[in-house]
């Protein structure tokens, strides 16, 4: 399309244009944002609590009013009219402006918080000072750049979550899932850690739903000491952090697929599904992108495993005087666990792995070789010439800040809303591995009903070519699938259903689809 002249009107026309209600709503919301932006210039507005309240209420009102103006007068159903005509959702000028603004914000947030008004020894100024009253009310401490970020993050998930629920008011699955991420963000990521900080100042800040390797820092020395020093509460939290990785998460992933985390609980996922919903169609569906995805995300897994092991190793002792775990016990433990997983997969799950087995083996042997090297040649947690601490700061900079924040969220309007989840998140990769190898979850394809229209693939935020499976009558069992359910929602012919069923027959490629000659189906599909 696009070889003919469209109207030159700047306002655009339906479904591209905003209606009057939406325009007013944008004005209100932007006024709220404007108050925050003014604060960057350290304008003294006086009563911080009042102005912060006005700002947040205005943002909320703007977004909710916008949703009302967009959806309330329409029949319930799929609301994708004009998605590819609107500048913001089709990589137009607005999208680039938003992308640059977000990216800039993340760079300032991570590397130059002083411009937001962070003052190390003394009273905050500017934007951060505006949040001081709220922070003091919750934890008793003055605000930090992270408190400002966390508050805005929560506001975004709540307000855009409400918009999403309105948009999908015909779809119970989407509604419940969104209520869930809104709850986990507000309670677990925002309120509980603040309140815990008030009750017990020694406890490390801990978002309980955030498990390693997403919170790659969880087993660093200062945190471990913090847990240990806080007595039974701290030890319980440490214990919870460990069984989350080895018991809770594999169990839930077996039962429900990785969606239980990625699109029902996770904060990154929560933002992607709510504020990022308008950008899901921008993910790259090509086979090439899939290849890049597998290399990059699994490299991050290898990196985080090595980094964490090296960090823990570096502070453990050679005897049990400091921690009951010694260097030798720990490093052998890691090697044994990795070997057990590797052996189990190679023996029992070879078929599922198929061509990827080679890459899995490469990853495994890399880690083991490096661990051996570390133990016998450096003895202090150094990997080759890199200190554990250097690894940690590098990871924190490259993956924790640049990838998950600056690129992952800043580039929403350009690369889609799940770039981090797809290409960078080691947690998603590990859950995905479990989902692919042993899980009851799949997206079932409904017999021969697919018409290859491509709505499912277009709106898959993880860049899965869903149609490629559906038109073969094959169920979708992909490690990257976060189970958002949008493919099923946008399907005009009722072809896709997310469900948890028996593991047997989960994948079932067919060359000839249901509805044709049964003998022909037997002949072709049995090959």
């Amino acid at each position, binding site marked *: 399309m696009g070889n003919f002249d469209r109207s030159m009107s700047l306002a655009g026309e339906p479904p591209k244009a905003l209606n009057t209600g939406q325009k007013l709503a944008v004005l209100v919301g932007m006024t709220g944002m404007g108050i925050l932006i003014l604060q960057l210039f350290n304008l003294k507005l006086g009563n911080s609590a009042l102005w912060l309240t006005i700002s947040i209420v205005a943002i909320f009102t703007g977004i909710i009013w916008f949703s009302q103006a967009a959806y309330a007068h329409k029949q319930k159903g799929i609301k994708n009219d004009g998605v590819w005509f609107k500048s913001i959702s089709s990589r137009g000028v607005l999208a680039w402006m938003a992308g640059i603004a977000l990216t800039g914000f993340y760079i300032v947030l991570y590397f130059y918080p002083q411009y937001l008004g962070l003052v190390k020894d003394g009273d905050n100024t500017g934007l951060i000072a505006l949040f001081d009253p709220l922070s003091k009310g919750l934890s008793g401490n003055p605000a930090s750049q992270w408190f400002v970020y966390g508050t805005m993050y929560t506001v975004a998930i709540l307000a855009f979550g409400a918009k999403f629920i309105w948009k999908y008011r015909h779809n119970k699955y989407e509604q419940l899932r969104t209520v869930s991420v809104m709850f986990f963000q507000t309670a677990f990521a925002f309120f509980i850690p603040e309140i815990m900080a008030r009750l017990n100042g020694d406890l490390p800040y801990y978002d309980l739903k955030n498990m390693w390797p997403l919170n790659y820092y969880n087993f660093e020395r200062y945190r471990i000491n913090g847990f240990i020093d806080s007595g039974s509460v701290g030890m319980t939290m440490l214990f919870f952090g460990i069984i989350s990785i080895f018991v809770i998460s594999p169990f839930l992933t077996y039962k429900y697929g990785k969606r239980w985390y990625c699109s029902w609980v996770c904060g990154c996922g929560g933002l992607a599904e709510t504020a990022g919903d308008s950008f899901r169609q921008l993910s790259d569906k090509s086979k090439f992108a899939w290849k890049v995805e597998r290399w990059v995300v699994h490299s991050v897994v290898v990196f985080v495993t090595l980094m964490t092991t090296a960090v823990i190793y570096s502070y453990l002792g050679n005897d049990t005087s400091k921690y009951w775990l010694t260097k030798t016990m720990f490093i052998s433990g890691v090697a044994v666990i990795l070997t057990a997983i590797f052996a189990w997969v190679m023996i029992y799950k070879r078929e599922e792995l198929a061509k990827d087995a080679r890459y899995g083996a490469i990853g495994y042997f890399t880690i083991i070789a490096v661990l051996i090297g570390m133990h016998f040649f450096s003895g202090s947690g150094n990997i080759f010439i890199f200190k554990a601490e250097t690894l940690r700061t590098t990871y924190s900079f490259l993956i924790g800040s640049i990838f998950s924040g600056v690129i992952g969220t800043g580039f929403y309007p350009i690369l889609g809303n799940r770039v981090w989840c797809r290409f960078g998140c080691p947690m998603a990769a590990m859950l995905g591995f479990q989902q692919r190898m042993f899980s009851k979850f799949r997206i079932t394809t409904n017999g021969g009903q697919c018409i290859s229209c491509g709505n499912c693939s*277009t709106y898959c935020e993880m860049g899965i070519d869903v*149609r490629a499976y559906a038109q073969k009558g094959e169920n979708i069992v992909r490690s990257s699938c976060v189970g958002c359910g949008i493919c099923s929602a946008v399907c005009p012919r009722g072809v896709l259903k997310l469900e948890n069923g028996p593991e047997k027959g989960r994948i079932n490629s067919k060359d000839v689809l249901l509805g*044709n000659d049964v003998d*022909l189906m037997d002949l072709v599909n049995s090959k």
Partner: protein
Amino acid sequence: MDHIVIIGNGISGVTLARHIRKLSDKKITIISAESDYFFSRTALMYVYMGHMKFEHTQPYENWFWKKNRIDLVKGFVEKVETDSKKLLLKDSSYISYDKLIIATGSKPNKFGWPGQDLKGVQGLYSKQDLEMLEKNAPNNKVCNRAVIVGGGLIGIEMAEMLRSREIPVTFLVREKSFWNGVLPAGESAMINEHILEHHIDLQLDTNLEKIISDDNGRAKAVVTDKGETIECNVVGLTAGVAPNIDFLKDSGIELGRGIKVNRFLETNVKDVYAIGDCAEQHEGIGSRRPIEAVWYTGRMMGEALAQTICGQKREYNPGHWFNSAKFLDVEYQTYGWVFSERSKKDNEHHFHWRHATEKICITVAFDKDSYQFLGINTFGIRMRHEIFDQWLTENKDIDHVMTYLKGANFDPEFYKLYEDEIVAKYNADFNKNISPKKKSWKRIFSIA
């Protein structure tokens, strides 16, 4: 090495090509004048509505064809010379074939209405039609009103498309109720209501008399058989489709409304076959029509013919009928045969349930004497294809269907389920005492 030439790169031709490639090393060429690459015709509406870009409607990436050694030729076949086994293209080049498959699909029907060839009058079938609509109706300033003529699946899609740009739409439907030649009365009535909910001016029992031209040869109004003149800028002709076979007139290939084929999809000329919308069976298979202009049947013919072309001669022998569509926001699926009041036989009885407020309903057809299950239409509830296919094969009765209906539900998780309500109404209507069984994975998967 055989050279297989396929005219038409729609679902029929492309399915055929893919399957021939799986089975053999033959040289395959696909000729199309419509588009460079295969795209999903059923998705064209979403391009106009801005849900997708045109490239999203292409199911395979562009490298796919070369990798699978399927040659794509862009060109329009003017003439088929069956004696010399050659095709003459519009650019005067020739392509020789060993086996020729015609899969040229359909074109919109025109029934000789005065003014049917004016500017601004168009059907909606091809990529070119979509591009034309984008020119004719880019917005509601250029197009103040559109009139759609013909109450079928394409008509309602076109209405939905135009409404997405807030263009006022008048929808002329010949029948007394929307699509009631196919749908039973209750369902048809529900869709009438839904069309009105979308602010479409639905005029039932109304025919097009003529289209009036302005001074530049553009449509400016239509006149209906009720004597009403409706001003408009665009007229959508969506009164069904007919096989696209004009170029075969003097080819010696036997033609009826479509290209006449036997059960092996062979024409009267050796090494020439026809599949998809343009093929016409000498007699309809089962309750099917001789010409089946449906996505799924096009695909199935491609799957079947590939076997024949590759040396395992095989009839086109479709299984149980199924189909689907979406009427604005209401999804429709059908399995087996449910006929409208107009065309159903005496033995076919219906059980109908409709939700009190939502646009959800089902109709189950069964034999009035044996109670054998014949088919189901569902609106706003998704059902499992495999299960209904199995029930039809096993000649289950309607009581069985009602008892195990919960297991056939395919709606997304957490959706409100209506099986209890449905079965209660069935019990009341037919004085039965069926209690529905819970969904069982075992039953669902012993079937697949």
